[in-house]
């Protein structure tokens, strides 16, 4: 039972991390109708920026803030320089252009930081484990990811649901043409959303980077998961992204930990050891397929379409 609680925490942590990535992705996709494969590059840049700033400032928290700011700036610059030319074009053009951006950023990182990856040093108060419940020691850093991501999710909720800016964002997600026709400065809104999306991805990247180290191409695998999340949650919906991320995180982690044991009941040990991991990595895609069959718009589609 204690193990189950611990695995749920692990799943929650992965899910919330995915949420940070998916929130930006779903807004960009939903509001700007832009398929942004390069979102994973901001995730990677966040980690590399944090690695550099952590060495410079000798403080993880300061480095994290600076890295988010830097990815925000890079994101807005990318929007102004590259993305603006893509609005209203075919999705295939988006895929091609943003795939090009992935290659560009990977090579850029290789030139700027070298091919071997970077560590993000953690302060000692984060690099330990704490006794959450008696008998459940948990990594203090992973716990801090949960706390920070929940705080960001709450903040996003407040902004999207309670402010004028959020109203515009929601309006944009449900009907893009109408909001432009009503005289909202759509250009500025787009730049801002893209930048914030990039900064959130950067935050996810730098937090995960301290666990996984910063690597070239680190964003590409997790981006696939993020796309699964926004498909399950419904494109353009922050609430959908939040719930779907936690579902995906929990299913992935709990599946990984219990499915092999489960298979052992029916199969030989050898077959279970092979089928278990293979099956558990398929689970979230099965969920996505199921959602697509039952609710093709996703669980919480942004209204009006």
């Amino acid at each position: 039972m204690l193990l189950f609680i611990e695995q749920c925490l692990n799943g929650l942590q992965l899910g919330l991390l995915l949420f940070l990535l998916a929130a930006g992705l779903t807004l960009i996709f939903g509001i700007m109708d832009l398929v942004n494969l390069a979102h994973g590059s901001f995730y990677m840049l966040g980690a590399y920026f944090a690695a550099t700033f952590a060495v410079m400032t000798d403080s993880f928290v300061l480095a994290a803030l600076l890295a988010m700011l830097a990815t925000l700036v890079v994101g807005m610059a990318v929007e102004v320089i590259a993305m603006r030319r893509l609005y209203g074009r075919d999705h295939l053009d988006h895929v091609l252009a943003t795939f090009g951006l992935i290659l560009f950023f990977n090579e850029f990182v290789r030139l700027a930081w070298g091919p071997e990856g970077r560590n993000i040093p953690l302060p000692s108060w984060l690099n330990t484990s704490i006794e959450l419940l008696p008998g459940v020691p948990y990594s203090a850093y992973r716990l801090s990811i949960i706390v920070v991501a929940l705080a960001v999710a709450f903040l996003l909720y407040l902004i999207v649901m309670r402010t004028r800016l959020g109203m515009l964002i929601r309006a944009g997600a449900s009907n893009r043409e109408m909001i432009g026709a009503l005289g909202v400065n759509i250009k500025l809104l787009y730049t801002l959303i893209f930048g914030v999306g990039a900064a959130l991805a950067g935050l996810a990247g730098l937090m995960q980077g301290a666990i996984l180290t910063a690597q070239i191409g680190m964003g590409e695998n997790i981006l696939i998961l993020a796309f699964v999340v926004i498909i399950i949650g419904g494109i353009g919906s922050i609430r959908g992204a939040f719930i779907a991320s936690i579902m995906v995180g929990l299913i992935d982690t709990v599946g990984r930990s219990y499915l092999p044991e489960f298979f052992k009941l029916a199969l030989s040990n050898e077959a279970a050891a092979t089928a278990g991991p293979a099956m558990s990595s398929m689970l979230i895609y099965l969920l996505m397929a199921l959602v697509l069959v039952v609710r093709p718009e996703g669980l919480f589609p942004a209204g009006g379409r």
Partner: protein
Amino acid sequence: MKMALCAAGAVLALAAAPAAAQDKIKIGFVSTFSGPTAVIGNDMRNSFELALDHLGRKMGGKDVEVIYEDDQQKPEVGLQKTQKLIQSDKVDFVVGYIWSNVLLASYKPVVESQTFLIGANAGPHQLAGEQCSPFFFSTSWQNDQTPQAMGLYMNQKGVKSVYLIGPNYAAGKDMLAGVASTFKGQIVGQDLTKWPDQLDFSAELSKARAANPEAIFVFYPGAAGAQFLNQYVQAGLKGKIPLYTAFTIDELTLPRQGDAALGVPGAQEWVNDLPNDANRKFVADYRKKHADVPGPTFYGAQSYDAAMLIDSAVKGTKGNLSDKNALRAELKKANFKSVRGNFKYGNNHFPIQNFYLQEAVKNPDGKLALKTVSTIVENDQDRFHEKCPMK
């Protein structure tokens, strides 16, 4: 007259071309040169090139041309690059392969074309047993051997129970099977994780802790080794459940593992401080030539040996590459100074060699380095050689 001259010239040119080709030894080198594990491929290339420098860029008096190909750590890409080397470059030797799954995919086309294949890292059990080939030689090990040595060491330490964690691909399965074959205690659980994309091991570490073993054995090559070790420390397991490793700590990952690697034992057939002349020269010259990168690693040492092995065989046949039987007989002698100390080939063309215990230590200058602690097993032969029909 003019026509005749032209024709004669053409004939000469045609005749000269194959002669020139024969004067040169062509080697195809397949490794990973892009992505997060490119540092391993670079270390192998640096070491192979260093060996060529030491040989005066010639093997048995012939010029050497090396064609490096990037497998991107993907079996299908490795196969494609290998086929290209054999069919269009028509290389005399194919060398390299970090990953067992890439080697398994690329193996058949090489040996079926009767080209010699020198495996410089991966050693899947299939190639040591039923699928052994007269055209395959390894300068590394059979996958099971290194973890087998670790299993023996855990017995020596009196470990009674262990939890095994490794990646779910050919080598990962071999490694866990290897440690299970020599470890006398109880295996309380094991996890195979999705490879190479799963880098978050929280679920596995939680399970390992809950199983309450006396030790954890782990195999994560390349960058994943740094990621695993960091997470093991963050989960608060260091100092609680000791870690035993194979191929998880090397010179490339050490800078990123830092103090987390201190005191974590690993088994290896080569360590940078092995006291023999060939090794001292290899390590010193590598560090002089490539001061900007950490290394050399065991991957590099095996690649260096691969070059020396080919050179010894070419010298042995006096440069005659067409007599494959003679070339094979020369390769089988392993008549060169290996940087791990000399070894013999078994019937399946895998080395019979020693395995050492290595540990990370802090040098007086504050830098971390790997050093040999003891010899775990001497003249170890892999456990699949009897299944190989070659005698």
